[in-house]
C-alpha cells in the first residue's frame, strides 16, 4: 500500500448483532484506490457490498461493530473520526455518494434547486462569503455542474420537481449533487441497475469522463461484470464478505485466478457455453467457517481450506494483482 492511495481499506472485519445472533458480515475486506482511478467492487447480493459502503461513509446500522482492520481516506483514519468531523468534512464533502435508485433518492415535495442548495449549505466551503453572495456562488457552481452532467436546461431545472425528470436525468441530477462539494471520492452503489442499457451507457460515459477531468476517484459497486469491463481500471471481487481477488480489470477478467471469480466470469451469458450457474448457495454469515467461505462450493477445495485465515497475496503478474486462495499460496502446496 503506497502513501499515494486516496482510500485504503485493510483487513476490515465487521459483525452485526441481531436477534438471530452475530452475523460476521465482512471478514477481511481489502482494497486500495488511488486518485482519479475507478475501482469496481463486484459481488453478488448479500456479499457485504452495502456494509462496506456504509462503513466508509460512517453510517453503519445499529448493532454493527468493527472487529478489526482500518479505513484510511486522504491519510486520515475514518473509523476514529467523530460524527461532527465526518459531517463537516467527509460525508457529502470529500466523499460524494450516488445511490442505486434515482427514483427514491430525491424528495418528491421539494424542488431540485432546494435539495441541491441544501447540500451546499451543509457541506460546501464558504470562502468567507455570506448571504446572497454565498447563495449566488452556490447556485453558479450547481448550474455549471448540471451543465457538465448534460442535464437539459440547467437553469430551469432548479425550479422543477423530481417527477418532471426521466430516470436518466434524475441519475444525472444525483451525480451533480454528489459532485457539488468537489469531492475526492465518489461512491456509486449500482447507479445504473435501474436504467436502460442505452441510458446506462450514457451514464457510464459520463462517469468515465468526470473521473479524468475532475481528478475524482470512483468506487463503483456492482454485480454486473460487463459494467466493470466498460468503466473500471481495477476491480476487486468480494464473496460472502471476503475479498477473494483484486487487480487491473482486464487481467482479472481475461485470466481470473480465484475459483469463484472463474465461476462468475463463466456464468456471464457472453462467455457461457450453456447457462452455467454455481452449485450451492452463499453461506449464512451467522455461522461462517473461519477459513475460505467459498470452500463448500469450490471444486478445488482441499481439507485445509475451511481453516486458512483469509489473506490476499500478490501474484507473480505484479503487486496489484492479488488473490486469496490456497492454489496460489506457495506455502500451502503439498
Amino acid at each position, binding site marked *: 500500500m503506497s502513501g499515494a492511495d486516496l482510500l485504503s481499506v485493510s483487513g476490515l472485519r465487521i459483525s452485526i448483532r441481531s436477534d438471530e445472533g452475530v452475523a460476521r458480515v465482512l471478514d477481511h475486506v481489502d482494497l486500495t484506490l488511488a486518485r482519479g482511478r475507478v475501482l469496481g467492487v463486484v459481488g*453478488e*447480493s448479500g456479499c457485504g457490498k452495502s456494509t462496506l459502503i456504509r462503513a466508509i461513509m460512517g453510517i453503519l446500522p445499529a448493532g454493527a461493530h468493527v472487529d478489526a482492520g482500518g479505513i484510511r481516506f486522504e491519510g486520515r483514519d475514518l473509523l476514529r473520526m467523530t460524527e461532527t468531523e465526518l459531517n463537516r468534512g467527509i460525508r457529502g464533502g470529500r466523499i460524494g455518494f450516488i445511490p442505486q435508485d434515482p427514483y427514491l433518492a430525491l424528495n418528491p415535495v421539494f424542488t431540485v434547486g432546494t435539495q441541491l442548495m441544501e447540500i451546499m449549505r451543509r457541506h460546501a466551503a464558504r470562502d468567507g462569503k455570506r448571504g446572497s453572495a454565498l447563495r449566488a456562488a452556490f447556485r453558479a457552481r450547481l448550474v455549471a455542474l448540471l451543465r457538465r452532467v448534460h442535464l437539459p436546461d440547467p437553469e430551469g431545472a432548479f425550479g422543477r420537481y423530481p417527477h418532471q425528470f*426521466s*430516470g*436518466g*436525468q434524475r441519475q444525472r441530477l444525483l451525480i451533480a449533487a454528489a459532485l457539488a462539494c468537489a469531492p475526492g471520492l465518489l461512491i456509486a452503489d449500482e447507479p445504473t441497475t435501474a436504467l*436502460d*442499457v*442505452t*441510458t*446506462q*451507457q*450514457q451514464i457510464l*460515459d459520463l462517469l468515465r469522463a468526470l473521473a479524468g477531468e475532475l481528478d475524482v476517484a470512483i468506487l463503483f459497486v456492482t*454485480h*454486473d*461484470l*460487463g*459494467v466493470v*469491463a*466498460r468503466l473500471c481500471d481495477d476491480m476487486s471481487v468480494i464473496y460472502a464478505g471476503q475479498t477473494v481477488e483484486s487487480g487491473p*480489470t*482486464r487481467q482479472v*477478467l481475461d485470466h481470473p485466478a480465484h475459483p469463484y471469480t472463474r*465461476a*462468475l*466470469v463463466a*456464468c*456471464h*451469458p*457472453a*462467455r*457461457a457455453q*450453456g*447457462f*452455467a*450457474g*454455481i452449485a450451492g*448457495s452463499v453461506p449464512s454469515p451467522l455461522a461462517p467457517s473461519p477459513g475460505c467461505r467459498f470452500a463448500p462450493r469450490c471444486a478445488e477445495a482441499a481439507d485445509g481450506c475451511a481453516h486458512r485465515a483469509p489473506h490476499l497475496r500478490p501474484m507473480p503478474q505484479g503487486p496489484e494483482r492479488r488473490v486469496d486462495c490456497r492454489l496460489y499460496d506457495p506455502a500451502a502446496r503439498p
Partner: protein
Amino acid sequence: MSGDDLLAIRDLTVLLGGRHRWLRAPVAPLRAVDGVSLGLRNGEVLGLVGESGCGKTTLGRTLLGLQREAGGEIRLRGRRVSGLAPASARVARREIQYVHQDAGAALDPWWSVGHTLEEALRIQGLRSGTERRARVRMMLPAVGLDASAYARYPHELSGGQLRRISLARILLLEPRIVILDEPTAGLDMSVQATVLNLLLELRRRLGLTYLFISHDLSVVQRLCDRVAIMYAGRIIELADARAIFEQPRHPYTRALLAAAPRLDGIQPSVRLRGEPPRATAGAAGCAFAPRCAHADAACRMQDQVLHAATADHEVACRRWQELVIPAADISCRA
C-alpha cells in the same frame, strides 16, 4: 405471419389513459402499443426487447387479457380471442399465462407457498383439497424445489426460489403459452443461469411456447429463437436471434446492441443521444428519427412499417439498405 402460428396478432393497438374533462380539453390517450403485428410459433421462444416505456409489458398484459385492446385482432390457434369483455377474454385465453416481473411482490406475504399455489387450482374449480395438495406436491420438484417449500412463506425464500414459485403457480394451470416478463431481473448471475436452465428444460418437457420480455440482450441472445425489437409502441425489427445479433439492420437495434456491456470492455462504436420518447399520440414519421444519426427529412414525414429485408428478417426503416456497417463493429459477442 404464417397461418399455423399458435398465437397471431394483427395491427394490435392499445391506448392507455386519456380522459374527457368537463368544460376542458380532453387528455389524449397514449398509444402504448401502436399497430403491432406478430406471430408466435408453436414451441419457440420469441424475445420481445425494448427499453422501459416502449410498450413491451403492455403488449404482454394485453395478450393475457388484463388490458383491453383498442384495435386489431388476436387469434389463438386460429380462433379469434380479441374484442371480448375482460372476463370472457381471460377465459378464452386460458392457455396463455403470465409470470410477473417482481416475483416477491406477486406473492401474498401472509400465505404459505402451498396456500398460494393451491389458490390457482381452487379458482379453476378443483374442489378436492387432497387432489389440489397432490398436484402442488408434484409441481414443486418439477421447478427444482423440495417438498419443504410447501409450508414456507415468501420472506423465507431467496430471489431464485421465488421465481420458481411463480413459475410453479402458472404451470399448475397447464398453459401452452407463457409470457415471461423480465424473469431474470434483479437476480445474481449465478442464480440467473439456473433459472434460465429451468425455463429451457420446462419448455422441452411440457411443450411450452415462450414470449420472453426482456431488456437484457445477453440473455435474449442465449435463450431466444427469434427476437422482436420494440420502440415507442412499435416493432421495428423482427428476425431470427442469430440474424438480429449478427446482422442488425435497424439503427436503433444497432445502438441497443452496442450499448450492452460486454466482458471484453470494448467501447461501443455507436452511441445514442437523448432518451426514448414517451409513447406519443400518433405523431407522424419514424419515432426513432429524432435520435437517429441517419435520419433525413423524409424519415420525419413518413411512418415506417415493417417490411421484409430478407425472407425471415423484417425491418421498419426506409434507409436500411444504405446503412451498411461492418459486422465486426456491432457484434454483441464478447
